[in-house]
């Protein structure tokens, strides 16, 4: 966080650009906004009996789900079917980005950002006294795909509006069930993020459910595209319920939730929505999961094994920051 001692823009009504031009002397890194400093909960130590590296990894999992989902949704900006939907999708993306930033900062506080500060783009290496980039920025812009811990659903191409709605319906139903349980997490940051996220995700799920009804129970064409969208995201759903070892260990100490517990609640939402929307629950095999191993994770985003789609997302998200590693404004 950098101080910002410019004069009040309201006193410069004649030219709002004056206020921008007289901003900080110390400069801000062009790609970061600074968040981790001065946030009460982020500095809290790991709860007693909780492995610090596990907690950092879990914060990254929760953060990366939201960060990559947010980046994907932001791709709709200025392209949605109607202005209202453009605004809605951008709002959902913004909520998820906010959740991601706090969790990334928490992971950074627990040491997760340090290995990624040493790249050729690291501002600290080339200029004495340059800005130290915040943990959340280092983790967002300077990690490569294998270091991202998100479930693969969130990195998949959103396709058309129908597929996007199916994607939001599944993602928000799952994350809402997860976050509601995490309000009781022993980690104060995870619990605090969850407390806010529950309210936000309730709106996201309502939005997706209502569009699922309108499209599913709409015209022949909208029905067909909504069903096709649901079919397309379905192979990525199974992974949402497969626990990673980190999740299991942290669930045992009251910090995390075993995602297998979330299946019934997500199913209940689908059972409520799909029949009214005249849609059929898909029966398609899960991506990357070998038959007969449904309870064992053999592959997945939580381990850093991603689909090729993540590369596209990261290229868009990271390339500018990497091309201009010391840009300030």
């Amino acid at each position, binding site marked *: 966080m950098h101080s910002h001692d410019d004069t009040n823009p309201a006193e410069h009504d004649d030219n709002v650009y004056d206020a921008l031009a007289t901003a900080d002397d110390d400069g801000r890194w062009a790609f970061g906004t600074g968040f981790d400093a001065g946030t009460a909960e982020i500095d809290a130590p790991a709860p007693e009996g909780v492995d610090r590296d596990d907690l950092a990894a879990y914060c990254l999992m929760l953060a990366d789900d939201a960060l990559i989902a947010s980046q994907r949704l932001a791709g709709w900006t200025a392209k949605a079917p109607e202005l*209202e939907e453009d605004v809605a999708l951008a709002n959902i993306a913004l909520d998820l980005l906010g959740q991601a930033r706090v969790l990334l900062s928490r992971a950074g506080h627990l040491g997760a950002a340090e290995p990624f500060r040493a790249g050729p783009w690291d501002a600290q290496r080339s200029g004495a006294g340059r800005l130290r980039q915040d943990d959340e920025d280092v983790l967002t812009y300077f990690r490569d795909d294998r270091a991202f811990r998100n479930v693969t659903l969130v990195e998949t191409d959103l396709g058309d509006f129908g597929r996007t709605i199916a994607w939001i319906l599944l993602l928000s139903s799952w994350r809402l069930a997860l976050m509601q349980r995490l309000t009781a997490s022993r980690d104060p940051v995870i619990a605090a993020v969850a407390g806010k996220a529950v309210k*936000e995700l309730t709106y996201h799920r309502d939005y997706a459910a209502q569009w699922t009804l309108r499209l599913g129970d709409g015209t022949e064409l909208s029905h067909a595209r909504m069903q096709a969208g649901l079919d397309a995201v379905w192979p990525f759903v199974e992974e949402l319920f497969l626990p990673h070892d980190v999740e299991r260990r942290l669930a045992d100490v009251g910090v995390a939730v075993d995602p297998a517990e979330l299946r019934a609640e997500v199913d209940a939402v689908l059972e409520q929505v799909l029949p009214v929307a005249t849609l059929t629950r898909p029966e398609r095999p899960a991506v990357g999961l070998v038959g007969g191993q449904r309870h064992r994770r053999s592959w997945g985003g939580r381990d850093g094994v991603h689909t090729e789609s993540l590369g596209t997302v990261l290229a868009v998200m990271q390339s500018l920051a990497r091309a201009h590693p010391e840009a300030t404004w």
Partner: protein
Amino acid sequence: MVTAPLLDARTAAEGVVDPEMPMLTLADLGVLRGVDTAGDGTVVVTITPTYSGCPALDEMRADLRRKLHAAGHERVEVRTTFSPPWSTDWISDAGRRKLAEAGVAPPDRLGPRPAGGPVPLTLVAPSRAVACPRCGAPDTEETSRFGPTACTALRRCRSCAEPFEHVKEI
């Protein structure tokens, strides 16, 4: 040289307005969680965001620092806290009145929410009685659940046909 502050810290902090809804002070909005003076004289202001991704938070911090500096407080620290999470119930009565006067429909008070159990999904959008802040007519419709800021929805009055914003309940 130490000079006496021109305005006490709490009064100065409470007078800072929200960057996106400038008819409200941070106190009206209910995001100001504390104003304390540390042993070394540093003013420590604690705020909470309305939504996780609220982009106004950085501006709030900067505005608080500016206002407190201008009021004669040299050392200012703005801290953020997330817990307990903000809800629209934190908006004061004065804040609700100011919103309505500015043509923004204030949120209903939700009261304490039941803890535990899945969050119910309602397939039909709840038809809240949101009166038009311009003509007062009760017959209004939601045009978009998401508005120009994270905390507002868009509505339209069926009586006077004017669009308006509604601070949606969370």
